[in-house]
Structures are given as structure tokens and as C-alpha cells.
């Protein structure tokens, strides 16, 4: 553990030194460089749950992150290595219109801090309202998808994993964004994107569903769009995305099995949020995933109500998902959570959360669990 901590510290220091040197190197007349970052130290403990084993995990256990597979197990006690992370983002502005941005993330449970690049794109402002971007970005599927790890931007320790969980969460491609006032105090934020993503051995597929067997998942011909209308208090969002889904497994004997063969897939999402001047907070999402041929259908939602009192925010949230397909396998889960956030100052938030989750899967899976989490989250 120490060896890796030192490695990540050295890496971070080198990156910081490199980043801080960069401005002096690139400071041509219009050029400027800026960097920012975010981090969280999250420690959680499974208090109780179902006694069973699933894949590599000894339960009672609970999955709190699907993308890179963050699973807490009761027998391990307090664990701080499942969701903690640090992210650094650098933006090089060539002029008023043109810039390049990259974001590097490092986590203890992603190949021992091996940095991953979730974002790397160039951006061009066509005018005050329209922006063209190309490269790698996170898919803005649901309300929190493209800032899932910016903890200071939401009230919970993490947005409900019942809603936020897919093997693929980024795309390589292009998008065009619109942002502007539409009427009265309402503004419109909209985006249309297209691209693809090829992921060998995504932790989601390989670890959760194929017991360590090498996998390859591809989302291609992705075309998606969202529109968010907000007036400062209310915000409503609608999203639809279509893509072709391929997935293969590499068998031990060297042969390949095609599990999904370019199946046409549509994901739709609705969300309605309220941040009242009366300090009441409401978060809601209603989403659906539908795939042809396999007949896969996921329905999932979250509904949270909270109250903000000075630097404190309390939130009660329920979330649920149910997945069915042509096969007799039904996967599902329902979770209730209570979260408390305290804003230490404008850059730091302290959070505590209690999750009570019931597994509704008709075969052995992660099972029921009660989880207690604490997190220190910052953006800088």
C-alpha cells in the first residue's frame, strides 16, 4: 500500500510540477494554461447483509461503483480503497475560441492507481452559444454522468449506483453544444454527440458478469442528444441515445463467444430537479435501457428529497432498478439512503451516508446490505 501511495504521490507531484511549469513555456500572446482538480477520500463499511459469495466477493457486500467496480465486503471492515480518487484537469487555451482539455484520474482500485484518461478533447466556440468539441468525453447520459466523480457538485457520497452503472461511460467522437437564454429567466443547455467506444476487459463485464474471463465490449454508431431547461430553481432534462452493442468473451481454449452482435440499443432518460430558495432540494431521474434481439430492458429511477440549512444538507433518497431479458434471469435492487453533507468551506465537503439495499435478483448476486460511508470531497 505504501509503495503505491508513494508512487501516486510522486506521480501527482510530477504532474503538478509539469503543469505549473507549462504556463511559462506556452505563454505566447493569446495562449494561457489553467488547471483544476478534484479528489475524494471515501471510507465505508458493510454493517450487515446476506451471507453468500458472488464472483470474487465474500458477502455481506455491496457494489457502490459499477464502472470500475467498487465493492465493499463486510469481512474487510473499513475500506478506503474502493471509491477514493484524484483527478487533474488541464486546459490549454490557444485563443478566445480554441482550447484543448485533458483529464486524468487515478484510483487505488483501478490497477493500483494506474491513471486513466476519461477526457481529452479540443473545443472550438463557433459563437457565444454554439461550441464544437472532438475527442474523448464522458457520455452525458444521465444528469450526473459526466460529473459523476465531482463530489462537491452533489449532495450524496455518490449518485445512486442503482442508476449509474454501465460498462462504457466515455465515447470517442464529436459533439456540438448549445447554451443560451431562451425566454424569461430560462436557459437551455443542449448537446448532440456521436462516436464509439471499444473497451477490452472493462471491469464491469470481466469482473462482475464473466468471472474474470477476458471480455471486449463495444458501443458503436452512438448518436445521442440531451436538452436541459433551467431557471435557477427548476431544471428539467431529457436525453435519448441510440447505439449498436457488441460484446465478446475470449474463452480459455482461444475461441471467441459473441454475446451481443451489434444489437440496436436505446437509452432514454428524464430528470427533474429543484433547488429552491426555500432550501428544499428535489432530485429525480427516470431512465430506461432497451435492446433488440437480446430483449434486455432495464428500468431504473431515483427520487431524493432534501433540505439545506446553512452549511448542512440532508437528503433522503430511494432508488431502484430492474433488468429483464429474453433469458429467465431477472436482476434488480432497491435502495434507501440518508445522506448528510457539511460544507467545510467553498472547496471542501464532508459527507456521511447510510444505505439500506435489498437485492431483487432471482439468482445469487451481491445480496442485501447495509452500508455506512464517510467521504471527504474537494474540488480545486
Amino acid at each position, binding site marked *: 500500500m505504501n509503495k503505491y501511495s508513494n508512487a501516486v504521490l510522486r506521480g501527482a507531484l510530477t504532474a503538478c510540477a509539469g503543469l505549473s511549469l507549462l504556463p511559462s513555456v506556452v505563454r505566447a500572446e493569446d495562449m494561457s494554461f489553467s488547471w483544476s482538480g*478534484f479528489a475524494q477520500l471515501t471510507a465505508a463499511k458493510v454493517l450487515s447483509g446476506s451471507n453468500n459469495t458472488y464472483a470474487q466477493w465474500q458477502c455481506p457486500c455491496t457494489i457502490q461503483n459499477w464502472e470500475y467496480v467498487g465493492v465493499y465486503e463486510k469481512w474487510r471492515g473499513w475500506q478506503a480503497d474502493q471509491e477514493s480518487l484524484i483527478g487533474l484537469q488541464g486546459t490549454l487555451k490557444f485563443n478566445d475560441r480554441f482550447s484543448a482539455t485533458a483529464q486524468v484520474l487515478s484510483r487505488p482500485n483501478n490497477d493500483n492507481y494506474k491513471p486513466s484518461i476519461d477526457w481529452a478533447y479540443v473545443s472550438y466556440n463557433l459563437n457565444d452559444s454554439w461550441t464544437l468539441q472532438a475527442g474523448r468525453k464522458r457520455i452525458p447520459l444521465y444528469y450526473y454522468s459526466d460529473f459523476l466523480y465531482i463530489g462537491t*457538485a452533489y449532495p450524496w457520497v455518490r449518485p445512486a449506483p442503482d442508476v449509474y452503472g454501465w460498462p462504457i461511460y466515455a465515447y470517442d467522437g464529436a459533439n456540438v453544444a448549445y447554451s*443560451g437564454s431562451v425566454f*424569461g*429567466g430560462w436557459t437551455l443547455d443542449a448537446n448532440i454527440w456521436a462516436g464509439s467506444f471499444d473497451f477490452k476487459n472493462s471491469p464491469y463485464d470481466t469482473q462482475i458478469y464473466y468471472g474474470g474471463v477476458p471480455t471486449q465490449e463495444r458501443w458503436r454508431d452512438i448518436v445521442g442528444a440531451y436538452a436541459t431547461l433551467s431557471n*435557477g430553481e427548476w431544471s428539467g432534462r431529457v436525453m435519448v441515445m441510440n447505439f449498436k452493442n457488441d460484446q465478446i468473451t475470449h474463452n480459455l481454449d482461444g475461441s471467441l463467444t459473441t454475446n451481443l452482435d451489434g444489437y440496436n440499443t436505446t437509452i432514454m432518460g428524464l430528470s427533474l430537479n429543484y433547488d429552491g430558495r426555500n432550501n428544499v432540494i428535489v432530485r429525480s431521474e427516470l431512465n430506461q435501457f432497451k435492446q433488440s434481439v437480446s430483449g434486455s430492458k432495464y428500468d431504473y429511477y431515483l427520487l431524493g428529497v432534501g433540505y439545506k440549512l446553512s452549511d448542512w444538507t440532508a437528503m433522503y433518497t430511494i432508488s431502484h432498478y430492474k433488468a429483464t431479458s429474453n433469458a429467465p434471469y431477472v436482476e434488480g435492487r432497491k435502495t434507501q439512503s440518508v445522506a448528510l453533507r457539511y460544507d467545510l468551506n467553498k472547496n471542501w465537503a464532508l459527507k456521511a451516508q447510510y444505505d439500506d439495499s435489498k437485492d431483487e435478483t432471482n439468482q445469487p448476486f451481491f445480496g442485501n446490505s447495509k452500508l455506512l460511508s464517510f467521504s471527504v470531497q474537494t474540488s480545486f
Partner: protein
Amino acid sequence: MSRFPPSLRGLGVVLLGLCFGATASAGNLVVVAGASSPAPKLNTEQVSAIFMGTSKTFPNGEKAVPVDQAVGSPVYAQFYNQVAGRSESQIKAYWSRMIFTGKGTPPQDAGDAAAVKKLLAANPNLVGYIDASQLDGSVKVLAEIK
């Protein structure tokens, strides 16, 4: 009042004093542009849209570039509380989301009122906010924040 013990009455007076004290120390803010700027009058919603980055222009179509007073200063906190109904942490959270999703960057941190006025005088597209007591001939008022 007699239902409350004398000690609590005393506390009430102290609390009231604190409230009024806080109000008195925070003066009225005004949104300003350089004296020669063609920028028109703004309502609170328009001010909010410009400073939250959702509107890049004044209502007359001219480019609008907001500048902040020092992040963390009392004037900064008062401005966003009154214009957007948001605390400093909430404003920071908002900009974190915008920065890390590639949707925008917060206004330039100009420093204090004197620095804001100096910047505004040099660029007619800039818009800032200062305490009304700091008004002088170098700037014109676009909105009064109440």
C-alpha cells in the same frame, strides 16, 4: 414576552442586535460597467444569467464579460446570495460541474472594488459589481441589487 425568562429575553436582544448588525455592515451592491460602455440597464435575472455564464451578451446584443470580486470576500458572498440565491459553496459546486464537463469557466477574479473599476474603465464589454458607496464617475450603474 413575559412568558420568556429574563435570560432568554436578553439572548433575543443579542440575536436581534447581531442580525441588524450584519445587515447594517453589508451595504447595497450595484452592478456596473465602464462609464463609456453602451451596456443597457439589467434586471436581476439578466445579471444572474451573465454571471452564471448562461448568457454571453447584454440584452442589446453586445458581448458581456463578467468580472468577480475576490472569491471568498464578503462582497462576493453577498452578491451571489442576492442575485442567484446561492451560497459560496453552491456557486463553487456549480462552477466545478461546468469546468469538469467542458461547459464553461467562472468569471475572472478581479480583486477588490478599485481593481474592478479599473478593469471596467478599460473595456466596455466588462461588467462587475461593487458596493454602492464605491461608486464614482468611472463607472455607470446597470442594476441595483436588493
